C-alpha cells in the first residue's frame, strides 16, 4: 500500500515518518514510534485508554489515522512531565491511590492534564465530565475523582 509522508511534533520533538493511510494513530504511536505508554483498550472510541493530546486537545488515538496528525503537535504520557519527575496529575494519582493495574491510567492523566491546563479552577462537574470519557475497571473511580480534585487544588495554586 502506498505510504504518505507526515511531519509532526511529538512530545516537543520534530518527527517525520512514512505511513500507510490506514494506520491508526494509536498503532503509529505504539508500534512505529515505540511509545507504549499509550494503551489500546477497545479500538472503538469508548474506553479512552488511548487518549493523547493533539494540539493540546484530548483525542482518542484509536479513532484517528496517523496521517491526520500531519503538521500537528502530539503529546503522550511519556511527554507529560520532565524526565524522571511526576507531573501534578500523576503525583495526585499516586497519592490518592487512583490507580491499580495502571492500564487506563495514562488516558485519564492526559484528559485531566488538558482540562486543568486550560482551566485550573475547573468545577467538580467539569472534572467529572472529563473523567467520564474513560473507563477504569479496577478502582471504582472513587479515588480517581479524589486524585482529580487533589491535582486541581495543586494546579490552581493551592496545596
Amino acid at each position: 500500500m502506498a505510504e504518505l509522508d507526515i511531519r509532526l511534533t511529538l512530545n516537543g520533538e520534530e518527527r517525520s515518518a512514512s505511513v500507510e493511510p490506514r494506520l491508526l494513530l494509536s498503532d503509529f504511536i505504539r508500534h512505529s514510534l515505540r511509545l507504549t505508554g499509550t494503551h489500546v483498550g477497545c479500538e472503538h472510541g469508548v474506553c479512552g485508554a488511548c487518549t493523547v493530546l493533539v494540539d493540546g486537545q484530548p483525542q482518542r488515538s484509536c479513532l484517528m489515522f496517523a496521517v491526520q496528525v500531519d503538521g500537528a503537535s502530539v503529546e503522550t504520557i511519556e511527554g507529560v512531565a520532565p524526565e524522571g519527575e511526576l507531573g501534578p496529575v500523576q503525583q495526585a494519582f499516586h497519592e490518592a491511590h487512583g490507580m491499580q493495574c495502571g492500564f487506563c491510567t495514562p488516558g485519564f492523566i492526559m484528559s485531566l492534564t488538558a482540562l486543568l491546563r486550560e482551566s485550573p479552577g475547573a468545577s467538580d462537574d467539569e472534572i467529572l465530565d472529563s473523567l467520564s470519557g474513560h473507563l477504569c475497571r479496577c478502582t471504582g473511580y472513587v479515588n480517581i475523582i479524589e486524585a482529580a480534585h487533589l491535582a486541581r487544588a495543586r494546579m490552581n495554586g493551592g496545596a
Partner: protein
Amino acid sequence: MAPEPLIGRAVPRVEDERLLWGRGRYVDDIHPEGCLEAAFLRSPLAHARVIRVDVTGALGAPGVVAAFDGAQAAALAGPLVFDMARIVPEPVRRSVDPLVRVQPMPSLPTERVTYVGQPVAMVIAESRYLAEDALQLIDVEYEDLPVVVDPELALEPDAPLLEPEWGDNVAIAFNFRKGDPDGAFANAHVTIEERFRSHRYMAAPIETRGVVASVDPFDSRLTVWASSQTPHLMRDFLAGALGYAPDRLRVVAPDVGGGFGMKGSIYPEDVLVALAARELRRPVKWVEDRAEDLASSTHGREQVHQIELAAGADGRILALRDDVVHNSGAFTTLGLVVPYNSFTHLLGPYDIESVDIRMRAVLTNTGVTAPFRGAGRPETVFAVERAIDRLARELGVDPAELRERNMVRADQMPYATGLVYRDGADQVYDSGDYPGLLRKARETVDAGELRAQSTDERRIGVGYAAYTEGTGVGPFESARVRVEPGGHVVVSYGGASQGQGHRTTLAQITADALGVRFEDVEVRGGDSGEIPQGFGTIASRTLVLAGNAIAEAAAEVRERAARIAAEMLEISPDDLELADGAFSPKGSPGTKLPLGDVAGFLSPFNPARPKGEPAELAAGSIYRPSSVTYAAGVHVAVVAVDVATGMVELLRYAVAHDCGRVVNPTIADGQIAGGVMQGIGGALYEELVYDDAGQLVTGSFLDYLLPTASETPELRLAHMDVPSPLNPLGVKGLGEGGAIGPPAAIANAVEDALLDLGVVVREGPFGPSRVRDLIREAATAGRDKVNTVGS
C-alpha cells in the same frame, strides 16, 4: 524496642511511578525482533457443522506466513483438556455425589462450532493488519444446526445437544439435603417461593487478553508472555498440549491490565499462538480486540434460582429450598468450580437448619462462563437476599431486622454449616461477627435523611445484602525469600498481580517477618522462571496463601541468619536483636551486623565460610491451607427511582466488611471499591444478551455498558476485621467480596422504593426500560386484582 510493624500501614504503592510514566510493560508492549502477528477467523454461527475450511486464499495474501485450520492444529497439538476440572475430592463425592462432565475443547474445531466467536482458523502474518486482511480470504462452509441459548430450555427433552454422546446437556448435577426440609415447609408459619434470574455479564478488563510466544533459536526453549492470572498453570498446560518438558517452557505474566477471573482460564489462542511460534520458529503475537473479548473471553453469572423459604412466626428461617440452573455456555472448562461455589454460599451468614438444594449446570450455544469476581457467589446471593426481602414483606418485618434474627452469632464461631467445601474440608466459618457487621452497615449508611426525601415521583429505597465468602482456596502457593550479600532481599512467589499491589503488600509482610527495611525488599511474581511451583492469583487467595508462604520463608531465613550471625559474633542467638536488616547484641545497639554481611559470609568465595551451610541465605516455603478463611460483608444501597422514566440513581452505597487482618488499608479499600463498582455495573448497566439464534447482540462497548465516574455513588466503607485463626498472619482474602453484594442490595433497594406499587424485582440489570416495565406490569396486575375483587 521492636520496630513499628508495617502490616496495617497505608504504605504508598511501589508499583505506581513506572506505570504513571507510561513505562508499564503489558503484553502488547513486548515485541521481539521479527515478531509475527496472529488473527483468528471466528464462527459467525452459534451451532453448525463445519463442512469445509479452506485457508488457501489466505496463504496467498500479502504478508501472510502461515494459516492453520482445525485439522492442521489438531495434528500439531492435542485439544485443551482441563484435567484439574475433573478432580472431585472424596468428601465432596460422599456429600453430594456430583455428576461432573468435562469435555476436551479443540483449539480449532474440525467438526462443529458451538458458539458465536469460537475460533475456526488462524492466520499468521507480518502485521495484524495483513493478518486480518487475509481472514477474509478464508472459505468456510457451515451447515446450520439447531441452537439452544436458554439454560432451562437446554434441559428440555427435545433440546439440541451440544455433546450428542452425553444424551442431554447436563454437565454438572448434584443434590444436597440436611435437616428436615419437607417437615419444615409443611409446618411453617409462612413460606415464600420465587424465581430469580442472575443475568450474564463479564469482567471486561480494560486490557484484553494477549499472548506473545518466542522460541529461542539456540536451545529451542519456549518463552510465552501472557496476560494471565495463572502463569504456572498455563506453563503446565502448554507443556502438556505442545509436548514440552515444563522446565523448557517459561510463562511470564508481565504487567497485566486487570483480570477479575477472566484471565485465570486457559484459552485456545494461548495454545495456538505458542504452537505457531514453535512451528514457524519466529516470535508470534496476538492481542485480543474488544469484539473478540466480549464474544470469546469467559463470561460470568448466568443462573436461574427457583427458591423457597419457610419461616416461623418469630421470623426464624426454618428451611431453604433452591433449584438452580447454571448456564455453563458451550464448554465446562472448570468443572464444579462456579456451580459448587454457588451451592456453598447459598446459606451465607444465616443459620438455617433444613436445606434442600438441587444444582444443575448445562451446556448451551453461548460463550463459556467461568469464574468472574465472585465466581458463583453474586448469583446465589442475589437469589437468597431477594428471597429474604420477599419473606420480610410477607412477615411484615423490617428486612435488616429479619436478617439479624437469622444470622450466625459471633458466639457460635467456629460454625459448621453441614456442607463440604470444594476443597474437601467441612465448611466451617472460622471467625466473624455477622450481626455486628449488619449493625455497622446500618449505622454507616445512615439512610434516614435520604429516605425522608422520597416523593411519589422520585421514590427512595434502601436495600441490604449480606454474604460470606470462602477466600484463599488451596491447594497451595509457593514463595522463596533470599537475602543477597548486599542486603537486597528478593521475594519470589507463585502468584501474579493484575493491579492488586502485590509488590507493596507482600513487601510489607516480608519486612515485618524478616526484620528488614521495606525499601530493601523486591517482590517478583508472575513468572514461572522465577520460582518453579505456583498456582496463581485467583479466588481471593494471594494474600492468604502467598502472604503466609512468604512469612514462613522469611521466618526461616531470619532464624538461620541469627544462628550464623551468632557464630560470627561469638554470642548466643538468643542475645541477638534484628532491626532494619541488621543484627545487634542486646544492649549494644551500636554494634551492627547487617543481614547482607551474613549472606556474604556464606558465599562460596569466602574461605572462612562455615562448612556444610548452603551458599545462599534463602528459604522456600509451600503454604497449604487446611481450608478457606471466611470473609464476610453487609452492603446497603440507597436508590432513587424516577417513576416516570424508570431511571435508578444510586445515591449512597455502604459496605461493612470483614477481611481479617488488613495489611494495607488503602489497598484494601481500593479492592473493595473496585469490586463494588463491578457489582454496580452488573446491577444497573451491564448485560450480555444473546438472541434466539445465539448471536451476541451486545458485542461492543456501545451496547455493553460499563459504568463511568459519573455513575459512582457516594461510597462509605467500614471495617470490622476479625483475624482468621486459620493462618499465622490472621488474614482473609478480599479481592472478590466487593462484587458479591451489589446486584442483590440494589435489587432490594429498587423493590423497596417501589413497594407500594406492588413491584417485585426478579432479574437485572435494572435499567430504565426494565424498571418501567415492572411498574407498568405491577399497575396492570393491581388493576386486575381490583377488578376481580369488585366482580
